[in-house]
């Protein structure tokens, strides 16, 4: 039983320790292994893992066709697609480039299949997302609480600031956005609706008058132009949030890798 359970754990632990100590120890043989051979072996095993995936996919779809499971007719297309790519990849290359280089030679049938079947399918799958983002923005994106409102406002400001149309949004519209944001926060504090609306309108008018006095209509200050607001959002709050998440995730990965190297992470090997 030892071989099945413990040996694999020992291999995992020793590989982890070797890879880490490769950065610190000065032994040439160790450095030779960690910097040259181990990465090569890793790449070769990862290549076999890709084969495993393809063979497993074949197995799945062949079973689907053999047992006539639901939607089995479509699985024939998968098998056909796979077969055509294998034939063009290994048997028929219709171009005289050496084997392997023919995959990228624009005369070969493999390249033709990539250019006119894989490329459109792959890019259109992704383009579908624009439609889903639109419907998700419309149906799923709600100002449920103050945090969601912050997320919404920084998202909208960023979307407008990054495209040329953001630069032509006039200063008083941005001023109106500032004022309505402040009033949205204090709205719950003021009970009487009439006072709320009157004060809201008056601050807007004061802002407009002040703006024209200070010649904002000629040279709008930075805090009133959406592209520079967007640049500030990216440079300060977004950087702070990303940095905190980055440190947090790095610590998570550090702890998980520590458990792998000390052989405590059993579930990966299924023990």
């Amino acid at each position, binding site marked *: 039983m030892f071989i099945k359970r413990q040996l694999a754990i020992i291999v995992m632990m020793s590989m982890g320790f070797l890879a880490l100590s490769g950065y610190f120890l000065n032994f040439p043989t160790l450095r030779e292994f960690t910097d040259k051979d181990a990465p090569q072996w890793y790449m070769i095993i990862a290549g076999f893992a890709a084969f495993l995936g393809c063979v497993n996919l074949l197995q799945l779809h062949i079973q689907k066709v053999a047992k006539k499971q639901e939607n089995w007719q479509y699985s024939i297309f998968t098998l056909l697609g796979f077969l055509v790519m294998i034939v063009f990849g290994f048997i028929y290359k219709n171009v005289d480039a050496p084997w392997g280089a023919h995959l990228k030679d624009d005369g070969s049938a493999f390249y033709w299949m990539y250019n006119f079947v894989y490329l459109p399918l792959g890019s259109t799958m992704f383009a579908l997302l624009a439609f889903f983002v639109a419907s998700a923005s419309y149906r799923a994106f709600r100002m449920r609480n103050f945090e969601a409102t912050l997320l919404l406002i920084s998202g909208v400001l960023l979307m407008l600031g990054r495209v040329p149309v953001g630069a032509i949004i006039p200063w008083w519209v941005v001023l109106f956005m500032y004022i309505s944001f402040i009033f949205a926060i204090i709205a719950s504090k003021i009970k009487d609706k009439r006072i709320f609306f009157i004060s809201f309108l008056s601050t807007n008018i004061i802002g407009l008058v002040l703006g024209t006095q200070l010649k904002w209509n000629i040279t709008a200050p930075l805090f009133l132009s959406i592209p520079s607001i967007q640049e500030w959002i990216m440079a300060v709050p977004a950087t702070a949030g990303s940095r905190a998440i980055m440190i947090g995730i790095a610590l998570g990965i550090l702890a998980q890798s520590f458990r792998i190297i000390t052989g405590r992470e059993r*579930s990966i090997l299924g023990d």
Partner: protein
Amino acid sequence: MNELKQYFYFLIIPLIVIAIYFLNPADIFVNGNELSFVSILISCFMIEYFIQKSKNGEDIYLRPIPAMKAMEEAVGRATEMGSSVLYVPGIAGLDEIDTISGVIILGHVAGMTAEYESDLHVPCCVPIVMEAARESCKEAYLKKGRPDLYNDRMVHYVTDDQFAYAAGVNGIMLREKPAAIFYQGKFYAESLILAETGNSVGAIQVAGTGSSSQIPFFVTACDYVLIGEEFYAASAYLSGSPEMIGSIKGQDYVKLLCMLFIGAVFLFSIFNYFEIFTFDMMTLFKINIEGYSVN
């Protein structure tokens, strides 16, 4: 663990190792990344300290995470409505830590579906993950004493390609209409297709990922989200194993050290400027190895 032994392990040994490192006998250590060596050593010993502490049964306090309670509720709802539970373990391989956490949380969810006898469906995108997921489900069903309910058809491989996988999982959602959907693992751009379709099928969706570029979509379209580190803490909670909970606690204290270190670097740069205290912190931060190149 009596006090003396504890002090010996977690105070004296690290100091000895650091002393040996800086003495660098017979030039066995590479120079140039001292700070990395010291910080790796301190964090590892701190995590080890808390793992030992939780192994000896000392109770460790970890604050409750809201999305965790939602998982039980989601599987319960799926069983009441007699529909299936869909678990999406992300599209990365096992070398990705998020996928490992996803497989651990899968083990817990599989335990719940075994208890509630609702059927579980786990479409995988990477062959190794499919193997690990099958193992993890088999273990969970065994632990709950229901190996009869488990069959290999629950966990199956779709395709290696990100978008064919998203389309495949969408097909499963539209056909089976699961009442509870879990997205736990490493996700990229396809997270929105899945969450949007899950939303339209009207399922409770609990997401959890470390890939921070996908969290905004999960926040908008899912009911509960484990954000970054909460996701790693959740898999520690669920596994209930002393190593996991101990390392979460250890991580917390290393995070405290990071905050103190940020404060120290900040203060030193101010002192340095006003010449109260002339020690340039920047000389500490060298991380590339000098003097040794392989070829």
